[in-house]
């Protein structure tokens, strides 16, 4: 499986995700600079976490307009898988590849802690190594992760099975006190219509090593490896 990781000025999880991808897939990803206009031949594009362009104006707003993203958008619309993590998710909503928007956490503050999210769909390229309903323990690290969309959009996401992950308690219950940032309907991650683009607020790449964050995030990269090789 060949992967490209897009590096924006201000990205800061680009190395982390590259390390996780290499460890799990055995192949070093291409690091693609935001000003490039061409993508290498790859099976997956990852938009990493961080503070692209300082998160100034709005998180992800400026990155959404960087030269490489025109190409990414083009290819994503024609089926190239894209995984946006944290800031990457924000970029995906800003460029319209995913619906809705990410807003300031309801508690305003930046939060870095382990949360539980429930896998809502197991039949996707991102989650086929999990079973539906599996609860994974995974860190979040953001202040702008409060998912918002209008009711009609939320209903559509639900009926089409496009909600990828939800914040929940250890037992998988969708409780409000298990929702760290106030996201609508406890949404932690969503797919596009074809389930080839995933935006996910938590950091699976930080949960791929038993010494530093457990291994619950490996499933995402293992699923992709299985589906895209």
């Amino acid at each position: 499986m060949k992967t490209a990781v897009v590096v924006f000025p201000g990205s800061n999880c680009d190395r982390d995700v590259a390390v996780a991808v290499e460890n799990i897939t055995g192949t070093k990803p291409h690091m693609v600079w935001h000003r490039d206009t061409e993508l290498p031949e790859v099976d997956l594009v990852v938009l990493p976490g961080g503070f692209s362009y300082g998160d100034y104006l709005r998180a992800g707003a400026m990155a959404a307009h960087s030269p490489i993203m025109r190409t990414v958008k083009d290819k994503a619309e024609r089926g190239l898988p894209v995984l946006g993590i944290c800031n990457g998710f924000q970029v995906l909503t800003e460029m319209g590849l995913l619906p809705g928007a990410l807003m300031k956490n309801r508690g305003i503050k930046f939060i870095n802690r382990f949360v539980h999210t429930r896998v809502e769909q197991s039949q996707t390229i991102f989650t086929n190594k999990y079973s539906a309903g599996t609860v994974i323990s995974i860190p979040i690290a953001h202040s702008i992760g409060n998912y918002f969309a209008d009711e009609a959009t939320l209903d559509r996401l639900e009926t089409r099975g496009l909600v990828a992950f939800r914040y929940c308690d250890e037992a998988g219950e969708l409780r409000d006190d298990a929702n760290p940032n106030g996201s609508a309907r406890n949404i932690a991650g969503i797919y596009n219509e074809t389930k080839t683009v995933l935006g996910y607020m938590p950091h699976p790449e930080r949960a791929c090593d038993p010494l530093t964050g457990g291994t619950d995030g490996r499933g995402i990269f293992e699923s992709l490896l299985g589906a895209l090789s």
Partner: protein
Amino acid sequence: MKIKVHVTLKPGVLDPQGSAIGHALASLGFAGVENVRQGKYIELDLAETDPAKARETARAMCDKLLANTVIENYAIDLA
């Protein structure tokens, strides 16, 4: 030409920053404060001197970058 842009959250969109300010004001002893909303205020100078064209450019800037129309409204003033 100076352009002033106000970007505010659409009515109905929750504004956690606004509410936090409301709480803080209350705990500082300011009574009777309600509906606090926080938005952005952006000022810039535009070389364009024709007001109509300037407004049009400003609108394009807002649609493309300055506001996220999924959640925000904007208002443009020329000065």
